[in-house]
């Protein structure tokens, strides 16, 4: 009967779908070594290290150098920089890319020095995590400030670059990586796409 054949065909379809997704499910278990609690532990450690810079009053250029060393170990600095350049990255020569990497670090260092004082008296409490699929794990925390409301601070952690590293920080839904991409895009546009001019400006700007 027609209906029997229909059922057979449906079963066959189901089996085919199950068979095609099975390998994906199995590898998902092994490939995604990073779980929620590992990621939370990673952020807790990172927060403690950052806390150390504030507590020991590591301001100025020396503190910034220490901060950068910490970022090189714990964050995907180059991947974030590449992301922030968007499509322009592929139009850049090797020299421009290398110059950008240096300028980007200078930009981070300037940001650190300009904003250092703002973090005194603040405390970060890790509150949980959410799986963000291929993007990694989103660790949630609250930034507690004296005399004002808590800020939702999230940390996107991924092991896609080989080791567990920070990909992004999100303040109340505002991603640092996306904001950098928008800011850099605006800077490039205002210079009519002059990449070298942009890189020079980046190195001397006061930071984010």
């Amino acid at each position: 009967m027609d209906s029997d054949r229909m059922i057979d065909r449906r079963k066959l379809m189901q089996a085919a779908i199950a068979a095609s997704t099975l390998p994906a499910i199995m590898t998902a278990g092994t490939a995604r070594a990073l779980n929620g609690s590992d990621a939370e532990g990673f952020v807790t450690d990172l927060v403690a290290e950052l806390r150390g810079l504030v507590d020991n009053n590591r301001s100025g250029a020396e503190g910034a150098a220490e901060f950068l060393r910490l970022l090189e170990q714990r964050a995907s600095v180059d991947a974030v920089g590449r992301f922030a350049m968007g499509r322009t990255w592929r139009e850049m020569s090797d020299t421009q890319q290398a110059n950008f990497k240096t300028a980007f670090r200078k930009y981070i260092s300037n940001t650190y020095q300009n904003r250092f004082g703002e973090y005194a008296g603040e405390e970060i409490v890790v509150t949980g995590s959410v799986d963000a699929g291929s993007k990694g794990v989103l660790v949630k925390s609250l930034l507690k400030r004296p005399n004002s409301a808590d800020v939702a601070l999230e940390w996107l952690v991924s092991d896609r670059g080989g080791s567990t590293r920070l990909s992004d920080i999100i303040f109340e839904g505002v991603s640092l990586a996306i904001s950098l991409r928008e800011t850099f895009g605006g800077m490039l546009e205002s210079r009519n796409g002059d990449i070298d001019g942009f890189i020079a400006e980046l190195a001397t700007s006061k930071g984010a």
Partner: protein
Amino acid sequence: MISGQAVSRMWWIRACLVALTLVSAACASAPADPDALIADPYEQTNRDIHAFNKGVDQVLLKPVSEVYDFATPALVKHLIANEVRYLQLPGIFINRLLQGDIEAAGAALGRFSLNTTLGAVGLLDPATEFGLPHEPTDFGVTLAVWGADEGIYLELPFFGPATSRHAVGRVVNFVLDPGFLVTAGVIDLSGVLSAAATARTPVEVVNARHENAELINEVLYESEDSYITARTGYVQFRRRFVGGQDSTEALPDIFEE
């Protein structure tokens, strides 16, 4: 009882509003830069309005909110902030119903009852202690729930950053708010109430400027390009607000090629 006719009329209004936001977005769906956070085909006009808004802030809002901060005792500021949130509750309740979220509508109603009675008509906020914290929403979110697209980026005079969906939402939200109905004389109450409703908007604006002073000052006066910073911050913040706390969709994929 809601008659069948009333229901179909509601559907019609709903369809029109969704269509309106779609049209406002569609008439300007320029081939957007794939890197861009949001399409901004009217950037030059938006930048002009941004400069105007910045001027308004500089000469009016910023100084007024600083005087407010300086001249008002902390306790009074606290009570005013509570009252501002309390007065938003009827609007929040209506929007939760329109979104079909009965549970959240119930929470808004519970919060309203508690803060009306134990909270001295909204000056205090015992509801938060009882596990019913302030959970804002607006008509822009309702439009999103109904399926309207976000649209393009707009900077509105006085109101500041918006998406075309949020811009439509702002207007409807204003009309939906019982405070507006009192002011407009739709709900005829004693003079005291309508005077309070009229005074509410400026108080709300000053309170909001004061509560976000640090952030607003930073965006407007300390950033490289305040237009871009405001746009980037607003669009991301708004998407999180519309999409909910646990949404991971908007997160960047820094390893993408």
